[in-house]
């Protein structure tokens, strides 16, 4: 085999690079869910925790269009309970701190949604 050593070495490096993220991932410490400060007076969100965890972004997107574009501002959840559609006046009335709730996961996940460029966080603006 011509250049056998080079080919094998090349393949080894190639696979090492290919699997590096996964190898490093299992070697270093595991990802831990951040600890959120949950509302004191409310036990349940507008939908189940699971639903909110996976779908809050889609839900907020839909809420935005329903309220603003369709003029429909009352939301009925899967259990039949009604809520006023508003990020500032419904979500943030329970989640009274952006820093202790939203930012916790968003920072870990490296996402920076621009909701707060316009919406006023419950902490107020400084």
């Amino acid at each position: 085999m011509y250049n056998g050593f080079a080919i094998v070495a090349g393949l080894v490096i190639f696979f090492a690079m290919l699997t590096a993220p996964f190898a490093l991932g299992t070697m270093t410490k595991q990802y831990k869910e951040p600890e959120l400060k949950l509302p004191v007076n409310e036990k349940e969100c507008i939908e189940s925790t699971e639903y909110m965890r996976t779908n809050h972004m889609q839900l907020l997107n839909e809420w935005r269009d329903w309220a603003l574009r369709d003029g429909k501002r009352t939301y009925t959840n899967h259990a039949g309970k009604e809520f006023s559609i508003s990020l500032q006046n419904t979500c943030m009335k329970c989640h009274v701190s952006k820093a202790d709730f939203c930012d916790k996961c968003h920072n870990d996940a490296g996402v920076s949604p621009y909701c707060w460029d316009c919406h006023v966080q419950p902490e107020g603006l400084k």
Partner: protein
Amino acid sequence: MKNSRRTFIKLAGIAAAGLAVAPKKVLASGGGHAPVKVNATASHAKHWAMVVDTTKLHTAEAIDELAKVCHHIHNVPSIEGKKEVKWLWHDSYGHSFPEQENPHLAEEVHERVFPLLCNHCENPPCVRVCPTKATFQRPDGIVAMDYHRCIGCRYCMAGCPYGSRSFNWGDPRLNLDLANLNPEFPTRMRGVVEKCNFCVERLAVGKKPACVEASNGAMFFGDLKDPDSEVRKVLREKFTIRRKPSAGTEPSVYYII
């Protein structure tokens, strides 16, 4: 090494050369249930319209008071000069009704100043030219803005014959009194256009527009398509004009002269 999503992504970038990208799983949204309706307390109309009685409301001071109310509840920044942002303002007869000027106009009328705002035109050029549909017309006639979509191209400003729109040249929050914000209403961000929204957020809970409420009976608001409404009653009884009729936009704001 800190095990973060960021590190993983960086390394994954190297690995990507040898990987075919698997199709992303699309997250299911609302799950097919469309659980929304109009607020039970909302006011409804086929076509919202406003009538301003300029025999009662015609001083800069009185109009500025109303503007203050409007600008406060909507977090409109106060900026002097060319970068001004305004939802409600005042101007002279000649600037408000340039086509209806005549050299022998009653002096008293000519000296009045007039409250101006977006006319929520029936045939709004701003909606026609907006490439993103950030400016759109609701079925009840209100010309609304979706700031999430506005790309700041300012076509709508060029399209509006009434100067009803303002562009945010800088971060509007720099010119807001942050200690005195209305926390119930968002601010805007740099690079979007804004204007009066006929107080849709108040109509949605059954209230009248804030300027109408604060006007001591000098402004009327109601359904133009309902012959028994208050606006139709005053329009029937009083002589009214609208701004720049030749533009053909059919304003929904009427002025009693």
